């Protein structure tokens, strides 16, 4: 897009009216999005506890972030969760979408059911699954003699994160499947007909014909899924509250828990600001990498 400045014309009366309508919106957006972001950085430079007086401590909070064990653990957990979630959700929803896009009986009913998890709130879904993990699965393990099911997944710091991935995926798959289906519908039938004449079928058909054409949808799904996963909060709140032994504290949960009530307002503000930078860098990398691939088509 190289339309730099060249198209800027003189401001007509009409332009100015539009400008007048835009300014209040920009101010509103600045006050409740950009300003708090800047304030967050400011708080990050202080030892504010959320109440009372505070002093400036320079960049100490930011330096401490890198040596704080709990923060480190929360980043590790959040990234592990996000990467596993993104891969699992995209693989499963792509398979589901390919199935649901075929000529099948009860197509709209099936699509309707598969979309249900997306409309339900993460918190309540978490509570429901919490019961499944704590009572149903161990009971199934008991009845069938399958050892690893007999203890609640949520009780062990080794498996609790998997339980959160399962719940997150249960909801995330619904959304991504629908996006993949809409992507598959944009593939013109002629492409497949042409492929059929060339004798391309099955797996090869998918990789050489279908996948390149739905690559933009793959990008959308990857970015959306990763972003949602990095911000995971509701499921943590209802499934584990960060436990056992802080093994499932996501970054959002840590900011909420320690920042709002743990007396670490300043420190967690620094954490939040770094988290923001991390999200920006990841989104930027994703779009640069995936966007670049798309253009080669």
């Amino acid at each position, binding site marked *: 897009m190289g339309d730099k400045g060249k198209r800027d014309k003189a401001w007509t009366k009409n332009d100015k009216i539009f400008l007048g309508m835009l300014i209040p919106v920009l101010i509103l957006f600045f006050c409740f999005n950009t300003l708090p972001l800047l304030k967050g950085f400011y708080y990050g430079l202080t030892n504010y506890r*959320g109440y009372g007086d505070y002093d400036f401590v320079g960049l100490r909070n930011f330096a401490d972030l890198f040596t704080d064990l709990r923060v480190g653990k929360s980043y590790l957990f959040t990234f592990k969760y996000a990467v596993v979630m993104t891969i699992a959700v995209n693989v499963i929803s792509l398979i589901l979408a390919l199935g649901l896009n075929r000529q099948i009986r009860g197509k709209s009913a099936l699509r309707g059911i598969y*979309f249900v998890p997306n409309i339900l*709130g993460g*918190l*309540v879904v978490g509570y429901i699954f919490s019961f499944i993990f704590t009572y149903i699965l161990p009971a199934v393990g008991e009845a069938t003699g399958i050892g690893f099911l007999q203890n609640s997944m949520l009780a062990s710091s080794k498996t609790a994160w998997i339980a959160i991935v399962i719940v997150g995926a249960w909801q995330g798959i619904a959304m991504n499947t629908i996006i993949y289906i809409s992507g598959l519908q944009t593939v013109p039938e002629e492409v497949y007909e042409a492929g059929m004449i060339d004798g391309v079928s099955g797996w090869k058909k998918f990789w050489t014909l279908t996948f390149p054409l739905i690559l933009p949808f793959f990008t959308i799904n990857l970015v959306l899924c990763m972003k949602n996963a990095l911000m995971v909060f509701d499921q943590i709140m209802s499934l584990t509250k960060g436990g056992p032994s802080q093994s499932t504290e996501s970054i959002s949960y840590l900011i909420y828990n320690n920042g*709002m009530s743990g007396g670490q307002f300043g420190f967690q503000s620094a954490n939040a600001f770094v988290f*923001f930078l991390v999200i920006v860098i990841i989104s930027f990398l994703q779009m640069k990498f995936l966007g670049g691939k798309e253009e080669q088509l």
Partner: protein
Amino acid sequence: MGKKNREGAVGGKAVNNVINVLLALGCLTILFPLYMTVIIAFKKPSEMTNDVAGALAFPSNWNFDNFIEAMKVTDFWRSLGNSLLLTGVTVIICILLHSLAGYVIGRKMARHKFFKASYFYIVSGMFVPFAVLMMPLVKQTSQIGLANRAGVILLYVVFFMPMNILLYAGYLKNIPIALEEAACVDGANVWQTYWKIIFPNMKPMHATVAVLTAMSTWNDVMTPLVIMSGSDVNTLPLAQLNFQSQFGTNYNLAFASYLLALLPIMIFYIICQKQIINGVVNGAVK
């Protein structure tokens, strides 16, 4: 818009039974938790034995005692009212304000750098998670007396702005500029042109924005949790969190409450399933 390839358009191919059966079986993973929720919600605590059947077998009789109790414990009607209020007002303001802003930016983006810059400025807000802004926003809203429902609505309106403006500005490409020029020739001013010509023409996008905004608002926990903490104003999901201690180990009561919390959106989904799925799809297809 996205309506060309409906069912049957593929045509001519045989139904694949294996895939059909597999997909139907897969549905059970969706339906099982919902089935369990309904069953437990109707049972008495004494019917909950420690084996699988204890949780999954039909209750001995279907009565609504748990629901009546849950409504009392969680102050259901007030929570429901708050959720409806927050969602309704947010959706209305978003549609009115974001469509106008999307129009203003979308129409002038190619003409002036300022509008283009504004577009990127606002849309880039999509990459700012609420958790990042949470602490400063809590301070800010309480300082200006907005630690209440109005404040939550305001934050939603700002928070959904990037996505919605992206959608509206994108949709504008489907509305020929000639429509506005014709209205202008007829002597309508910008304001009239917008509300009489553009706003009605953006109807499909209003539906998309309404669906996306409503679902995010309805299910959101974090914003009301931190902004209205300390007050006894609950939304439907928030009530589930705040009354956990009251449920104790009475899972039947808890599940009755969860089911009540899920019911409104389920009903909404059953009635408007097409619009909801189309909304999400259109939002992504754009």
